[in-house]
């Protein structure tokens, strides 16, 4: 019988799932992904999680809870960094430990094993092999033959989707959306933000559309740019957008209690001040966010973007 590996549909799922799924299925495992976020999962996650965690982290616990009874393994990598000055949030670093202590009873009861490779260091072949080795030893697979198989398939990469070419379609007004994939790609969490933008016939850009190479362009600036991997990219992408005049409006999406966001969003706002003609909307999502509030603000923002230069110099208050 095939063994099942549980993959919670939250946090790094949106950036890193595809390659890992391909890998596990090739090695003859069944991958069970938790269902898309729904109100039941949200309610459950609020019950079981430490209440100071940020909302996406809480959701992660809810997703784990949804599948923990049906799997043999739980796949929860420990993201440390992607090389110097590209670290992850402490909650990513401690995630396996948080899961282990929150679900201690259920893990013991269902005999679930955790696969927790440590993702650390520059994204080169050595690091990836080390991570693979950790995974294979956690899965008690035959190390040598697996590694040999993987070495043969050179195109397998266990990092994020590597985009080599930045997509740029200029048609109509373009809105830049800066926010974590785990908020934007989760329709329940972000109240269908991206779809709403599309329905209004706006184009949107988001950091995930741009390659990581963009970081290199801005890291030699004579200033300190954020050292979290995600935020380093967001900030570089923002500088790129503003420099090339690619966007007509900017939406900052963040979740309540996100640590890095609290500082970096301020930095982004300071940077944006230099470009007067870009209206800004700042949205915070958490368990108390109501759809009506978001929709009103979005509608007002869309009017502003459409209205163009008439209102250009003023920002919308984000406080309602």
């Amino acid at each position, binding site marked *: 019988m095939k063994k099942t590996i549980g993959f919670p549909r939250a946090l790094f799922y949106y950036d890193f799932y595809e390659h890992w799924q391909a890998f596990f299925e090739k090695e003859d495992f069944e991958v069970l992904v938790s269902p898309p976020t729904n109100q039941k999962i949200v309610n459950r996650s609020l019950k079981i*999680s*430490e209440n*100071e*965690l940020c909302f996406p982290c809480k959701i992660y616990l809810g997703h784990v809870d949804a599948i923990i009874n049906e799997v043999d393994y739980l796949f929860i990598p*420990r993201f*440390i960094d992607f090389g*110097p*000055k590209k*670290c*992850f*949030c*402490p*909650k990513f*670093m*401690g995630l*396996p*430990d*948080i899961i*282990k*202590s*929150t679900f*201690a009873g259920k893990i013991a009861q269902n005999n679930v094993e955790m696969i*927790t490779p*440590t993702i650390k260091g520059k994204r080169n072949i050595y690091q990836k092999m080390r991570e693979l080795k950790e995974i294979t030893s956690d899965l008690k697979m035959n190390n040598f033959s697996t590694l040999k198989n993987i070495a043969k398939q050179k195109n397998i990469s266990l990092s994020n989707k590597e985009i080599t070419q930045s997509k740029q379609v200029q048609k109509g007004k373009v809105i830049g959306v800066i926010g974590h994939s785990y908020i934007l790609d989760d329709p329940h969490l972000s109240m269908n933000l991206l779809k709403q933008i599309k329905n209004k016939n706006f184009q949107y850009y988001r950091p995930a559309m741009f390659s990581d190479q963009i970081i290199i362009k801005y890291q030699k600036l004579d*200033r*300190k740019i*954020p*050292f*979290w991997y995600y935020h380093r990219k967001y900030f570089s992408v923002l500088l790129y957008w503003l420099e090339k005049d690619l966007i007509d409006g900017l939406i900052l999406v963040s979740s*309540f*209690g*996100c*640590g*890095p*966001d*609290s*500082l*970096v*969003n*301020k*930095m982004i706002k*300071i940077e944006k001040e230099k470009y007067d003609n870009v209206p800004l909307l700042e949205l915070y999502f958490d368990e108390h966010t109501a759809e009506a509030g978001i929709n009103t603000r979005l509608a007002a923002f869309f009017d502003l973007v459409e209205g163009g230069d008439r209102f250009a110099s003023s920002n919308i208050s984000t406080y309602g």
Partner: protein
Amino acid sequence: MPVVTFPHMGKMELPVKTFLREMDISVIPPPQSSQKTLKKGKEYAPEFACLPFKINLGNYMEAAELGADSILMGGGFGPCRFGFYGELQKYLLQEAGYEMEMYILEKNIFHIKDIIKELSGNFSLTKMTRSFHFTWSKIKVMDKLTEKLYNLRGQVVNKEKVENDYNKLLKKLDEAETYREIDLIEQEIDNFLQIDNAVEKKLTIALVGEIYTVLEPFTNIDLARKLNYLDVSVYQTLTLSHWLKNFFTPGSGQKKLVNKAAGYINSFVGGHGLNSISDIYSLKDKVDGVVHIMPFTCMPEIVARAIIPEVIENENIPVLSLIFDEHTAEAGVKTRLEAFIDLIKYNKAR
């Protein structure tokens, strides 16, 4: 000549002042952190920034009003937000209309050397090394003094006397200019602070958590003193010398801490999240209870906080976790501390 200031963190004022004076850099320390400081800082700081960020910003503003024009601030590239403080604060000060130069000390001795050289009118490498060594010896004595105070004040009846002695010695230490004076103070610590009327039953509480909150009495509403006045000795693993050691040699001792945490947490999570868990676990037989404190939204400590319930359950050690922010009220903290101590006493008597 630039006039240098720096943010407060507990008693850090003393060694920093010593070092800068030795290096012939004119220095104006900001006034002690107060509600006024916090009010100034939070006006310009982002809403969800952690408490130290807001207090530091207020510190600079108050120092600027006294005439300081340059700031020395720590940096770093760890996952903790502290590393990004200086950079953002630089822009926020501009926004607030203060013209100040920000010098961010990265965790690199050569970088620090360059900055000190720029600030000092009279720089030499030997001088810097010598000043550094002198300051370090002061820090060590200061930490010993504080440790003694926290331990003793909980055991004696006449707490004011111990406090007076402590303040006298601290003032002496501040004014000390030679190694000999420092040595004399170190000897005096044992003689001066002695138990006269010991309290009957002695409890010891460990204070762990985020370093700024642990070291800065303004942020934690003088928690150590409050515990001492409840006749409880306080044991603190985080000290200024510990922080500085970690600042100059990041990553040192991590493996040891992971081993000490006994599988509850298996990795460095930034800041002192790992320290909190490993301290709670390794001190479980040595102390009667642990108070874990952190500022609101502190990321590393949130990880620790999520794991603490499991440690409490398995190891049977009482832990009180408190969060501090600008809205924390003294009465609320006091009530919870008293209830916590009562519970420990009740459990012990049973």
